[in-house]
Each structure stands twice: as C-alpha cells, then as structure tokens.
C-alpha cells in the first residue's frame, strides 16, 4: 500500500524558493533524542526559529562509522536515554505538524533493516519525513531500498565523496532525489577549523556534472559562517552543519535553555552566511 500523504517534492521546492531569492539552503542537523526527548524537541524548534531551511535528524546508532567523536557522543547520550527509531520518528511527526520546514532523516542501515524497510519508510512518511540519507548503504546495493523510498514518496539522498569517480558520480546524481550530499573532505563528520581548497574544487566539479538537475549540498567539517559562505559561493546549493550544532548540545547538558539560545543564535549566523553568498 503506497503511503497516502503526498510529498510535493518539498525539498527541491525549498531549494527553488531559496534560489529565486538568491540564497543557499542551510541544512541543520541534530541527533534525534539527544540528550533527551524534551531537549531534542526544544532544540529542533530553536533550529527552525533560527532560520534552518531544512532540518536533518540522525537516528542514533551504536556504531556510527561515518561520524566523528562529537556525533558519536551524541548518539550514546540519546541511546542511553532510550531513544528508538520509532520514538524519534514520532517526535519528527510532532514537529512537522507544527512547522512547514522539510525534514530529512539520517540513519545507518541496520536500524532500518531491523524495523523492516517498508515499515520504516511508511512510518517515516507518516511522520512527515521528506528525505533520507543512509550513509552505509552504497548506491550499488540500494535498489530495493530506493524503490521503496520512491513508493513512499521519500527522497533518497546519496552521498558522494571527493574521490568518487566520474562514472559513479553520474549514477549517484542520476539516482539522488531532493539533493546530492557532497562529503566535502576525506574523513568523518566533525568540526574543522578551516575548509580545504579541495572541498571547494569538489563542489565546482560536482555542480558542473549535476547540470542544475539536482541541488548539491556540502557537508562534513562545515562549522562556521565563513565555511558556509565559501561553499555557497563555490556554487553549492546548500550547506549542511551538524557537529558544530551537536557540540553546543553536548556543551550545555546542565543548562538546556542556554543550549537553545546558543543553537538559535548559531543557526541565525550560519543562515545569514547563505545570503552573503549570493552577492
């Protein structure tokens, strides 16, 4: 049974809307249920109020091999508070019914497999999820998952790395919906002091291959407004910021309202940088 709620390609529509205003998208990430359900909900609202264009929520996993220490720690915090995929999708459902911002879920494959691919995607769609990233599911192995995502009107967002070959990149571009997630460095997630020139080069190369058919967003190691404006100026349609936000959560465990304030302020300045990029 196909899911009933229409997707309306809300992610790509968001990129078009921003593009017409000369802005890039700010995609803001938090780990679901971190550090506890209540704070996670409040923090998500802080991201939205700060101006995030798309909210990305990670389903915490015991073995997050693509993530650096900041997101590893957040996953452990969430899991220790009993976070489950179903619980997190329910929380997204609550948020998506209040706020019009598109939601993307990031999950490693095993929690999805454990719930059942179809059940997970159906539940995600019902919770208002618009797109999904599965970092340990390569495009070559993803036909079944991709077809089910299509059936449930969830955009399947693939990753490309700086060393992805042109042949493979063509496949990834062809099969991605919503946007292409360009990993802008060699490595795992986590804030870095500076952006490598290589990242900007990769953005230009991928953008020229994408030929405007699909938005390209850059992530991994992007933590400061200057990074955001640099990637947008290099042609990226969006910038994904994760660890820099999750670190704020981790640094204010005993003062949740300060976390909210800081998150909102940080997102505001990151969002501002997507505008600077346009002039």
């Amino acid at each position, binding site marked *: 049974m196909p899911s009933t709620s229409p997707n309306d390609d809300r992610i790509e529509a968001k990129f078009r809307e921003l593009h017409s205003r000369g802005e890039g998208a700010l995609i803001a990430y938090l780990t679901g249920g971190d550090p506890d359900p209540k704070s996670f909900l409040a923090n998500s609202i802080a991201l939205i109020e700060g101006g995030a264009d798309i909210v990305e929520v990670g389903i915490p*996993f*015991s*073995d*997050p*091999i*693509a993530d*650096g*220490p900041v997101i*590893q720690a957040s996953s*452990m915090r969430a*899991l220790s508070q009993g976070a*489950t*995929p*179903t619980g997190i999708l329910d929380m997204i459902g609550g948020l998506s019914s209040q706020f019009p911002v598109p939601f993307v879920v990031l999950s*490693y*494959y*095993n*929690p*999805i*497999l*454990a*719930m059942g691919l179809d059940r997970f995607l159906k539940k995600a769609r019902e919770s208002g999820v618009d797109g999904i990233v599965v970092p*340990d599911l*390569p495009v*070559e192995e993803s036909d079944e998952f991709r077809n089910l995502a299509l059936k449930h009107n969830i955009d399947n967002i693939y990753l490309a*790395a700086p*060393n*992805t*070959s042109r042949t*493979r990149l063509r496949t990834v571009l062809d099969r991605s919906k919503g946007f292409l997630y360009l990993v802008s460095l*060699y*490595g*795992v997630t986590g804030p870095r002091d500076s952006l490598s020139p290589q990242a900007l080069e990769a953005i230009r190369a991928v953008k020229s291959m994408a030929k405007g058919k699909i938005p390209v967003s850059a992530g991994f190691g992007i933590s400061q407004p200057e990074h955001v404006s640099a990637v947008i100026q290099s042609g990226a349609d969006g910038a994904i910021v994760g660890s820099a936000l999750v670190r704020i959560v981790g640094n204010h465990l005993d003062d949740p309202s300060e976390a909210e304030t800081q998150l909102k302020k940080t997102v505001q300045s990151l969002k501002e940088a997507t505008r600077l990029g346009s002039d």
Partner: protein
Amino acid sequence: MEPLRELEDAYNKFSRDPSFKKELAGLLDDFAGRPTPLYLAANLTRHVGGAKIYLKREDLLHGGAHKINNTLGQALLAKRMGKRRIIAETGAGQHGVATAMACAALGLHAEVYMGSEDMDRQKLNVYRMQMLGAKVHPVESGSKTLKDAINEALRDWVTNVQDTYYLLGSVVGPHPYPTMVRDFQSVIGKEARTQILRQEGRLPKAVVACVGGGSNSIGIFHSFLHDLDVDLYGVEAGGESLSPGQNAAPLVAGREGVLHGMMTYVLQDEVGQVQTTRSISAGLDYPGVGPEHAFLMTAGRAKYVTVSDEGALDAFRSLSQLEGIMPALESAHAISYAMKLAKNLGTMDSIIVNLSGRGDKDVEIIAKHLPQ
C-alpha cells in the same frame, strides 16, 4: 566505494601474478614457518576415548597464531599498491602483532587500533606490537573492544585513504575483505587435507574450528567444502550464557543485520542496536561474523555451536596437561567441542581441530581463573 574497488582490482591483479605468489609462498615458508604440522594428539584421544583428534598446529607459526598468513598476504599487496602506511584493528592483539611483524619485515609503517579494554586484557601483545615498531592507538569509544577498534580503523581509512592501506584481520567487513582474507587463510585447509590423507589415508569425520570473525575457521573449512562427508563445526564463544550481552555468538544467538559494511548475523537488540559482547577470549569478542559463515550455516553446509568460558578453560587445562600444548583461549573453544564430538565417534574415525593460536598471551587471565 572507490578505495574498495581499487583494492579489489589490485587483489585480482596481484593474486594471479606469479611473482607475487612466489614471494608470498617464500615468506610463508621461511618467515612464518609453513607448513605447520598436523599432529595426532594421542594422549588427548586416549583420555576422551573415541575418534582420533588431530591438531592443525597454527600455534607454531611465527607470532603464535594463524594471523600471519593473512598479514603477509595483505602487507605484500599493500606494498605492490604503493601504500606505505598500514593501519589495522586488533582484538586479542594477535592480528596487531602479526601486522607489526609483516610490516617490519616488508619495510612498512604500522599503526594498530585496539580497544582500551582489550589493551588491559592483553598487555603482553601491546608491548610486542610496540617493540616491533608499531604504533598502538587505544580506542575509548563504544564497548572499547574489537568492534570499536574496527570502527576507528575505518574512520582513519576514510580520512587517510590516499596513502593508507587498511589491513583487516578477519573475514569480515566490506567486499573484497571476506574473500581476500579467506584466500590468504585457505592455506591452512589445503595443507590439512593433504596431511590427513597422507597420515590417515582418508578424510576426517569432522573439522572443528573456533569462530570470532571467522578467519581461521573459514581457512581450514575451505578445502573441505566439497567433501560433503566431512562435517564442519564452527565454535562460537558462549561466554557466560546465551542471554543478550553475555556471549559472542552471533550465528547461534543473533540475527541478520548489517555491520561494518557486510550483511551477516549480528548480535543486536530488537531495534537494531549492536549489542555488547562478552567472552573470556578477546579474539572471539565480536558481535558480527564473516558473511561466508552466515551463508554456510543457512545453506546447511556447516554447523555452528557454542562453548562457554568455563568449557574453554577446561579444554585449556586438558590440552596443556595431557599434551604439553597451551592453546589460545580462542582455540580452546574448538578443543572443547572436538572432545565432546570425538567421544561419540568410533576409534577409527578422525577429527581435525584447528589449533589457531598458542596460549602464552592468555596466561594472566587463565592464572586468575585456574588457581592451582
């Protein structure tokens, strides 16, 4: 994906290259000490009273375990690929030591990730790696054991992929590792099959090996896969019990899942979080298992069973005192099951147990459990 493709291409190319094969064969014979004997454990056989128990003496290899078969193969491959920095994960430390040895011999730089809990359990191997010139990185994330060391090695690899070769120690992880490591370890079964035919004039009733990731077991099973009269037994770590978190037996107590880039059997909770494992032997302490074992189990070609911590300790004592051979605690799991099996077979039958490593590394743990 690109590094895996590059690795697969390189492996396909060099594994067929006569000069590569010749160099590897030379290293296996003269550096590692192959072939290893197939030894009739006559005292143990008499003690058990049943089938003849033969030991494939991988414990006599340089470094004290089968691990060197794989590390020499992969280190040689890395060298041919022009990668000078080698990273590896290790559980008990045997793979780390074997990596350090192969790298020193071939002039490569080795860095080994090891869970901090395993470093406590296997101090001796930490010193050995360091003395062999390897750098040991303690891993503090997750359960601080083998699975987390693999996570950390994978994170290092994606960060330093251009000049770094990831030398995985078992038949786990993404393709081509499970195939490649099996190929390098299949020398065990090739020798054992020839040796048993020479010594007994016929094939054994059963082949028994312990299974953590599953490299020594797949290595000895491989040559017997088509001998359908030979039963294959993989022995997983039963730990304290088969309750969640109390063992390291994914094939017996787990279910299908995806971990470390492979689809296989995984110890996990109902929502797919990977569970912590427990075993007295650090080398078996892993929540996943090589995908080829999962295949052999579902295809019905091999059977997978468990032996508890206590069973392994008993077998350690039996083999040490009856044969003068101290097995690694990992291999003691296989010895324990083989003793049980032999009892129910005729005296004309034979069983081969892969004695995958020697027990020197475990004396401290064993001393705690077996007060004299």
